[in-house]
């Protein structure tokens, strides 16, 4: 097969075939167009203003490394006037995050950017190693994801920065859109499609400049520019992508590569149809803004291993199960008058036996208003934020040996002896 020539310069050999339009490009034309498109995204959405200080959520992985590299390049090429800072979260996972943080430290030198690392231990008093020790591996991704999102806000605040950019790519956005569609979660569908969350009034805004960039092209960009990035599986969530919506996205891409951007565009169009009162997203402004993702669910529930919310495996199976349950439940729904208390399985259709008639969208129509957590003071749409709720649960179950040593009453010392017994037995 004669080597194809680049469709742009027509001189060099084509090495890349673009997923979104099958354009065949040489290495340097690909790098140029990849950067130009991100510049286009940034300028058309008025993402930054001159003098802005921007924190790049950096994990050392491919997406955030490419984001840091491209932002540095564009900032210099087009005189954005930005001050770029790397912000990394140390979840406290030995043998995993400490390695990837070494990559971020090298990136800080390579890109000549200051680096701030904030740890779960200093913020929450728990490392992920300790969380897993306390609750086991199952469900630990929820803690990690919720903690990480707030940690980014807190880290930005420590730096006096009010805009954090993350490496979410088109594949991530498409995945989140599909999950929110399957859940029927309109507020989140609207928010997950917008490039910025939070507005001028928020303490910290979030944005995803790589929103329209294919994961495939991000990896190819990193490869051809020989960027220094880190890949490994999180020790607590190996193969998190298996059986997930991620696989569906990748299978779609194989059949029709443009499908990923099609899903992203369709998600945006559907989001426009969601009433503002539901979504909290204003369509009037030239720049789409929405409520903050401080509650930590907008980017998908998972989030191990990278800034991206990789959901834990089996979510598609869970979703199918839930849909089946919904279907079964809806056949019972007509039976409003009969006050037979059926065993509730927490589905929204299971309102049989309640005094009020079923309101399918009743729960979702309550507009989420952004406030602050009564406990920690960080952004939340509920009285107590998710991070504090999870922490409370963790702290309640943490054995308080040091405190109990001073307690004199018999009950506690009996308890202490029992706990010591357990500890000895386990050892």
């Amino acid at each position, binding site marked *: 097969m004669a080597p194809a020539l680049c469709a742009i310069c027509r001189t060099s050999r084509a*090495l890349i*075939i673009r997923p979104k339009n099958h354009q065949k490009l040489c290495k340097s034309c690909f790098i140029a167009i990849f950067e130009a498109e991100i510049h286009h995204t940034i300028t058309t959405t008025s993402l930054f203003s001159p003098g802005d200080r921007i924190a790049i959520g950096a994990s*050392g992985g*491919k997406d955030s490394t490419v984001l840091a590299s491209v932002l540095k390049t564009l900032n210099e090429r087009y005189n954005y006037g930005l001050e770029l800072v790397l912000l990394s979260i140390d979840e406290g996972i030995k043998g995993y995050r400490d390695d990837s943080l070494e990559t971020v430290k090298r990136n800080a030198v390579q890109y000549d950017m200051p680096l701030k690392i904030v740890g779960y231990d200093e913020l929450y008093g728990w490392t992920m190693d300790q969380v897993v020790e306390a609750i086991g591996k199952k469900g630990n991704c929820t803690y990690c994801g919720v903690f990480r999102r707030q940690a980014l806000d807190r880290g930005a605040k420590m730096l006096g920065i009010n805009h954090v950019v993350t490496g979410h790519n088109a594949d991530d956005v498409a995945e989140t859109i599909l999950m929110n569609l399957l859940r029927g979660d309109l507020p989140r569908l609207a928010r997950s499609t917008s490039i910025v969350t939070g507005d001028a009034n928020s303490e910290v805004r979030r944005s995803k400049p790589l929103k329209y960039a294919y994961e495939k092209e991000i990896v190819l960009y990193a490869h051809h520019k020989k960027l220094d*990035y880190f*890949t490994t599986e999180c020790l607590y969530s190996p193969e998190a992508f298996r059986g997930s919506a991620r696989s569906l996205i990748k299978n779609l891409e194989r059949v029709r590569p443009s499908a990923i951007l099609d899903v992203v565009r369709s998600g945006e169009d559907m989001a426009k149809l969601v009433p503002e009162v539901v979504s909290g997203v204003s369509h009037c402004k030239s720049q789409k803004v929405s409520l903050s993702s401080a509650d930590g669910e907008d980017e998908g529930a998972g989030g*191990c*291993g990278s800034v991206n919310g990789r959901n834990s495996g089996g979510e598609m199976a869970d979703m199918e199960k839930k849909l089946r349950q919904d279907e079964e439940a809806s056949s019972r729904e007509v039976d409003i008058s009969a006050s037979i208390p059926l065993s509730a399985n927490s589905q929204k259709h299971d309102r049989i036996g309640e005094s009020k008639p079923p309101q399918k969208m009743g729960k979702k129509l309550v507009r989420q208003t952004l406030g602050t957590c009564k406990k920690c003071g960080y952004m939340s749409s509920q009285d107590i934020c998710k991070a504090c709720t999870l922490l409370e649960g963790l702290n309640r179950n943490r054995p308080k040996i040091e405190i109990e040593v001073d307690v004199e009453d018999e009950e506690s010392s009996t308890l202490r002896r029992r706990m010591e017994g357990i500890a000895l037995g386990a050892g």
Partner: protein
Amino acid sequence: MESGNTIPIIVEFSGGLEMLFSDERKHKLSVPAKDDQGNAVNIGWLVQHLCQEVMKDSRKEMFVLDGHVRPGILVLINDADWELEGEASYALQPDDNILFVSTLHGG
């Protein structure tokens, strides 16, 4: 095997795939020029060969699904996307560099 009947190639794994191949990024291989049917060996043959002979890890499905390279794994032949080279039907040439990059892993 006679040297004339084998092709030296370099196979590389990155993006997290190396952990399936003894944590070795670079593998220097010598592959037969022809398969059992006497056809020139191609990438499709190489993928099966890697799975059966080179990969010690039991999680074959992390590399190959339904007889194809798992979606989300990029294949570069001498730095060119294999889609430009005929994908699995590309016939291996001496000193080819075949790179498998996973896009599926976190960082």
